């Protein structure tokens, strides 16, 4: 029930309660002030009474007018109804006048001047002490007012205390609810979906906030599922795209390093490979041989049968040359046009010559080259061999130049042969 009342209303009620309590305290203070003023006025009145009677009584005593004194004091007692006790003694403590009314004893909280006055009586002429007067006054009204005010004060304190207790208990209860909500929100992890609070029936602001958070968590939960799906789909797509990219890269690498016609490594790849082999041989101090071969009269084939047939010849020759090379370290590439280069690592000129011979044998073993019903005459190749052990100052393209020179000489010497340069 109380949880359906809005906090705003509760705060207004709290403020009203606070104002009421404040008014109570104010009233208590006001009454206390009135009481103290009452006490002060009573004290003033009593002081005035004593100040009035003292010189007269003093004069009567000093003149020995005992009867006059008695009559005067009787009159004073009659006129002051709150006077409960009057005692007049002379300098030798002999009682000159006594009056006592049967009233309750004065409480211990009695104040001097308000409830009792004790004053010496002086001779008005000589100012000598000639007696003492003691007056006591009824404090019934004052006591009643004081007790009533104390009761009011006690009531206010008790009400305040219990109101405070209730307020503290209510605040603790409200904060426990909010703390629980805060703890859940703090510990909430959308990945493991650990928010276990359900909607509440509360209609106040705390309930509204609670339900708003529960609703928000629900939305986060559904969005998280959606996001997870999207993530998974995205990851799959990224994976696919990566694979495609890798394939494309491989293809691109192949395209950049492979001659599309003969499918042999191209010139760029050849240079990279030769550079590596060169540096390795330099370190290992071993020979590197390069065989540069060229199809004899290839222009005539192109001119006679066309470039398509020329391309078929190039492809076949490349295949034949490749099949001759057995070692893993042996390498063949298309150098350009109808030229091929073979790199042989840790191979001297003699072994290179053997490779050339094997290549010539492979070419000559193919009796005829037939393409689309066209039969070609025998194709021959010229080889230029260069072989060196690389040293510090030498460069790999020097070896190619040497092989080229050797090839040139083979062409000059009548083609279909090999010429070697180097050791």
């Amino acid at each position, binding site marked *: 029930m109380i949880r359906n009342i809005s906090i705003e209303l509760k705060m207004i009620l709290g403020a009203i309660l606070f104002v009421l309590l404040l008014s109570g305290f104010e009233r208590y203070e006001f009454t206390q002030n009135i009481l103290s003023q009452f006490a002060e006025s009573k004290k003033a009145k009593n002081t005035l009474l004593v100040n009035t009677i003292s*010189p007269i009584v003093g*004069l009567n005593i000093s003149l020995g007018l005992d009867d006059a004194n008695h009559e005067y004091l009787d009159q004073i007692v009659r006129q002051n109804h709150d006077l409960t006790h009057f005692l007049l003694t002379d300098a030798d403590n002999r009682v000159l006048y006594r009056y006592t009314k049967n009233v309750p004893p004065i409480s211990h909280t009695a104040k001097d001047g308000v409830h009792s006055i004790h004053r010496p009586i002086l001779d008005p*002429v000589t100012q000598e002490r000639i007696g003492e007067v003691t007056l006591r006054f009824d404090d019934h009204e004052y006591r009643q007012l004081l007790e009533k005010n104390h009761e009011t004060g006690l009531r206010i304190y008790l009400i305040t205390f219990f109101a405070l207790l209730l307020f503290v208990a209510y605040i603790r209860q409200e904060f426990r609810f909010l703390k629980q909500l805060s703890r859940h929100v703090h510990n909430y992890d959308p990945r493991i979906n650990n928010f276990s609070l359900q909607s509440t029936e509360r209609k106040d602001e705390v309930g509204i906030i609670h339900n708003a958070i529960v609703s928000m968590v629900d939305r986060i939960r559904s969005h998280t599922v959606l996001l997870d799906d999207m993530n998974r789909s995205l990851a799959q797509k990224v994976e696919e795209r990566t694979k495609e990219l890798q394939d494309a890269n491989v293809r691109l690498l192949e395209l950049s390093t492979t001659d599309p016609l003969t499918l042999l490594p191209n010139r760029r790849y050849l240079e990279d490979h030769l550079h590596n082999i060169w540096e390795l041989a330099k370190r290992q101090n071993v020979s590197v041989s390069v065989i540069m071969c060229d199809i004899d009269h290839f222009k005539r084939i192109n001119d006679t049968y066309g470039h398509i047939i020329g391309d078929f010849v190039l492809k076949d020759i490349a295949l034949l040359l490749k099949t001759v090379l057995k070692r893993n370290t042996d390498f063949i590439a298309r150098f350009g046009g109808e030229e091929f280069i073979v790199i042989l690592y840790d191979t001297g000129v003699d072994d290179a010559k053997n490779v050339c011979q094997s290549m010539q044998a492979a070419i000559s073993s193919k009796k005829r080259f037939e393409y689309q019903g066209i039969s070609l005459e025998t194709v021959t190749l010229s080889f230029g061999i260069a072989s060196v052990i690389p040293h510090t100052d030498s460069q790999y393209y020097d070896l190619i130049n040497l092989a080229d020179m050797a090839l040139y000489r083979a062409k000059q010497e009548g083609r279909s042969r090999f010429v070697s340069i180097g050791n």
Partner: protein
Amino acid sequence: MTKKIIRYGLIFVFFGYSACAESYDDSVLEIVSKILPRLVLMSSQKNTIDNRIGICVAHEPSDTEEADTLIRKIRTNYPTGIKGYPLVLSSYEYKNVAACQKNQIAFLFDSNGETIKKAVRILHKNGVLSMSYDPIYLENGVESSLFIGRKVTPYIHFDVLQQNGIEIDNALLQISKIYSQRDGK
């Protein structure tokens, strides 16, 4: 016969003396003895004091003993004077009342009205405050006396005091009865 003459003679003297002598209440005299010096100090007569307070008692020859009694009482009550002033006490018959002129106050025992009037005139002329035993003399111009009723209180002839320029302390006025001509009548 001689014895008779002597006896009747003694009776005559006794009654004659008794008839002439006034009777004074001792307690009233006691009060008077206390009030006289204070009346000086509680009135403007204190301004005329010169190191001593002079109190004069005027009486008929028949009251000489009473006057002495009063003086004794004053001495008993104020053996060292009052407020540092010694008391100078004197007693005179009415025929010598002029001798009271240097005193602050004079107490008048009973006498006939004319004598009292005459004495009062002399006293007032010399600025001496007067007080009588019998308040009936207030109508003869005496300034103060004692009112004797259920209680004894000072009795003040305020008009005469004013005429003579004598002021009385407020406290004394409060305990006193104020004389008016109506009372006298």
